[in-house]
C-alpha cells in the first residue's frame, strides 16, 4: 500500500470519526434543547389556561371554559389539543368538541425521564407530549381539576431531522475537502522522495552525474542534501577506483616490461650448463640477473643483483643497472673493474638513499677459471663434483650506491678459482636464504646447502630442487622478497 493510499485512508477515517461524533453530539444537544423549550412552553400554556379557567371551573361555566380551550389550541402553534378535566377525570372542556363529557385518557402514556409530570403518547399518527397543570383557586391550596395541553413532538423531530441533513452535508464536505487536502499534501511530501528514489535507481545503473534539487531546509531538504554529498563521495570513490585500476594496469605493463629485461633463456655454450629462476615477491621486483658473452664468446659474464626496497623505485634502479651492465661489461674481463665503473655511474643517482648489491662472475670457458667480485652481495657457492662439498665464494666489496667511488674502489677485491668438470657455481639473492615460514624461521644457507647436496642432474634440476625446498620451507607463507638464483655447471 502506497504512502498516499495509507495516509488518505487514515485521514478519511479520522475525519469520519470526528464529523460523526460532532454530528451525534450536536443532534443530541439540539434535540434536548428543543424538547426542553417545547415542554417549557407547554407548561406555560397549561398554567395560563389553568389560571384562566379557575373562575369558570368554580361556577361550572362550561360555555366559558370551552372557548378558552379552543382558543388556547388555536392560538398556540404546535398545540394539538387543550382540555379542562375535573377531579374525576371527566373532560369539561376540550378544543375538540367531540371529546367533551368523556373520561380523559391517553394512548400508552409514558412519563418522560426529564419531566415526570409530562406523558408521551400517541395521537393518531403523531407523537404528543401531554403537559398538565392543576387548576387551583387563589389563596386556597385545593386542586379542583387539571388542564391538559397536547404538544406536538413533530416540530422538534422535524427541526432535528433538518439539522441532521445539514450536519451530514457539512460532514460530507469536510470529508471530501479533508481527503483532497491530504492527497495534495502527501503528493507534495512524496514528490521529493520520488525524485530521490528515481535518482537512487539511476545511480544503481551507474549514472553518477545525478543531482537532486534541494528546495527546502526541512528534513527532506536535508535528506536531498545528504544524498547529493553521497553521490559526490561515490563519484570520488569511483575516481579513486579507476585511478587504482589504471595504476594496477600500468604496474602490470611494467611487470611485463621488467620481465622482458631479464634473459628469457640461459646461455648455450659447449661444456657448460646454465639455469636460472627469478620470481618477484611483488608485481615489480628489485632483483635482476643477466649474462654476457665476452671476448668473442670465449668468456661468459654472469651478474646477479638485488636493489634495496621494492616496487617502482627498485624496478627503475634495476632497469638502469641492467643497461649499465650491458654497456660496461664488454670493457673489461675483471669483474671488480666493471663494478667500480658501475658504482661511479650509479652513485650520483642512488646517493646512499638506495643501494644495489651485485655479484659479478667472469668465467673463462677454455681455462675454466672463474673470477668473482661482489659489491656487498650475498656470498656465492661453489659445489665441487668430486666430493659434493660446498664452499662460500666471498669477495670484499661495498654495495653499489652507498659510497663515493674513492671509498668503493679501495674496498672492492676479486677472488678467483678454477672449476673442475661437474662443479657448480651458484649465485643467488637473499630472498632465498631469508625466505621465512610462519614461525619466522629463515631458510638459511643451511637449507640451501642441504637442497644442493640432495639434488642430482643438470643445472635446471638443481635450480628446481632449491626452489622446491624453499617452497616446502615457506609452507604457503607469503614470500616478502624476490627470489633469484643463477647456476653454472661445468660439464
Amino acid at each position, binding site marked *: 500500500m502506497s504512502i498516499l493510499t495509507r495516509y488518505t485512508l487514515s485521514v478519511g477515517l479520522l475525519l469520519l470519526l470526528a464529523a460523526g461524533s460532532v454530528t451525534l453530539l450536536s443532534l443530541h444537544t439540539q434535540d434536548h434543547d428543543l424538547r426542553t423549550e417545547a415542554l417549557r412552553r407547554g407548561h406555560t400554556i397549561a398554567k395560563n389556561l389553568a389560571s384562566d379557567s379557575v373562575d369558570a371551573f368554580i361556577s361550572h361555566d362550561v360555555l366559558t371554559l370551552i372557548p378558552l380551550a379552543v382558543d388556547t389550541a388555536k392560538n398556540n402553534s404546535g398545540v394539538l389539543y387543550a382540555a379542562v378535566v375535573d377531579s374525576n377525570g371527566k373532560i369539561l372542556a376540550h378544543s375538540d368538541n367531540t371529546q367533551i363529557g368523556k373520561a380523559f385518557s391517553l394512548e400508552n402514556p409514558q412519563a418522560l425521564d426529564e419531566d415526570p409530570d409530562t406523558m408521551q403518547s400517541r395521537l393518531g399518527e403523531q407523537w404528543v407530549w401531554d403537559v398538565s397543570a392543576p387548576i387551583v383557586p387563589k389563596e386556597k391550596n385545593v386542586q379542583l381539576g387539571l388542564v391538559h395541553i397536547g404538544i406536538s413532538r413533530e416540530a422538534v423531530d422535524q427541526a432535528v431531522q433538518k439539522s441532521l441533513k445539514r450536519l451530514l452535508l457539512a460532514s460530507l464536505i469536510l470529508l471530501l475537502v479533508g481527503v483532497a487536502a491530504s492527497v495534495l499534501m502527501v503528493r507534495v511530501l512524496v514528490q521529493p522522495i520520488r525524485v530521490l528514489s528515481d535518482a537512487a535507481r539511476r545511480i544503481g545503473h551507474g549514472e553518477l552525474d545525478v543531482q537532486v534539487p534541494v528546495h527546502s531546509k526541512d528534513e527532506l531538504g536535508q535528506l536531498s542534501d545528504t544524498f547529493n554529498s553521497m553521490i559526490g563521495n561515490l563519484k570520488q570513490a569511483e575516481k579513486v577506483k579507476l585511478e587504482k585500476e589504471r595504476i594496477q594496469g600500468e604496474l602490470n605493463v611494467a611487470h611485463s616490461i621488467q620481465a622482458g629485461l631479464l634473459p628469457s633463456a640461459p646461455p648455450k655454450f659447449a661444456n657448460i650448463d646454465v639455469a636460472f629462476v627469478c620470481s618477484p615477491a611483488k608485481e615489480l621486483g*628489485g632483483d635482476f640477473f643477466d649474462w654476457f658473452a665476452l671476448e668473442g664468446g670465449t668468456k661468459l659474464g654472469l651478474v646477479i643483483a*638485488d*636493489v*634495496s*626496497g*621494492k616496487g617502482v623505485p627498485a624496478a627503475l634502479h634495476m632497469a638502469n643497472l641492467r643497461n649499465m651492465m650491458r654497456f660496461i661489461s664488454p670493457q673489461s674481463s675483471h669483474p671488480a673493474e666493471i663494478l667500480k665503473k658501475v658504482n661511479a655511474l650509479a652513485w650520483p643517482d642512488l*646517493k*646512499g*638513499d*638506495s*643501494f644495489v*648489491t651485485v655479484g659479478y662472475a667472469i668465467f673463462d670457458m677454455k681455462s675454466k677459471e672463474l673470477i668473482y667480485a*661482489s659489491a*656487498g*652481495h*650475498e*656470498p656465492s657457492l661453489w659445489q665441487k663434483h668430486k666430493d659434493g662439498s660446498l664452499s662460500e665464494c*666471498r669477495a*670484499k*666489496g*661495498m*654495495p653499489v650506491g*652507498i*659510497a663515493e667511488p674513492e*671509498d668503493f674502489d679501495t*674496498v672492492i677485491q676479486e677472488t678467483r678459482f678454477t672449476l673442475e668438470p661437474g662443479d657448480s657455481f651458484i649465485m643467488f639473492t*637473499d630472498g632465498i636464504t*631469508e625466505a621465512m615460514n610462519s614461525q*619466522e624461521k*629463515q631458510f638459511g644457507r643451511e637449507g640451501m646447502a642441504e637442497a644442493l647436496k640432495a639434488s642430482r642432474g643438470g643445472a635446471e634440476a638443481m635450480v628446481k630442487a632449491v626452489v622446491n625446498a624453499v617452497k616446502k620451507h615457506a609452507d604457503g607463507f607469503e614470500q*616478502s*622478497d624476490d627470489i633469484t638464483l643463477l647456476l653454472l655447471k661445468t660439464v
Partner: protein
Amino acid sequence: MSNLEINHSRDGATNAMVIKPNGNLDIFTYQNFRQYLQDLLGTGSESKVVVDLADTAYIASSGWAVLLSQSRMLRRSGGKMVLCNMKDEIRGVYEVMNVETLLPCSAGLDGVKKIFEEA
C-alpha cells in the same frame, strides 16, 4: 606484517642519542623507521648517534638503506652513527656488505665510546 616500536634515550657516558628499534627493519617497517630518524636527527643537533639492535632480529635491504643514508647525512655534518648489540644473523649480512667504514659497529654499548673517539 611486522610491527616496529622505536625508543630513544641519551647515553650518559658519551652524551650520544641511543635509538632502539624493537622489531624487524623490513619492507613493512622501514618507512616508519626512516621517518623516526628524520624527525629526531633532521635538525642536525645530534652528532653522536647509536642504533642499538639488541631487539632487532632482521634487517632487510630497505632497512640497511635507511641506516646507511642517515649515517651518510650525519657524517657530512661532522657526526657519526654507530651500531651496537648486533645479532649474528644481521652480522652476517653486515660483514658481506663491507660497510664498517661507513657504519661502524660495536659489540655492546660500552664499546661505542671508543669508536666516537676514533673520529
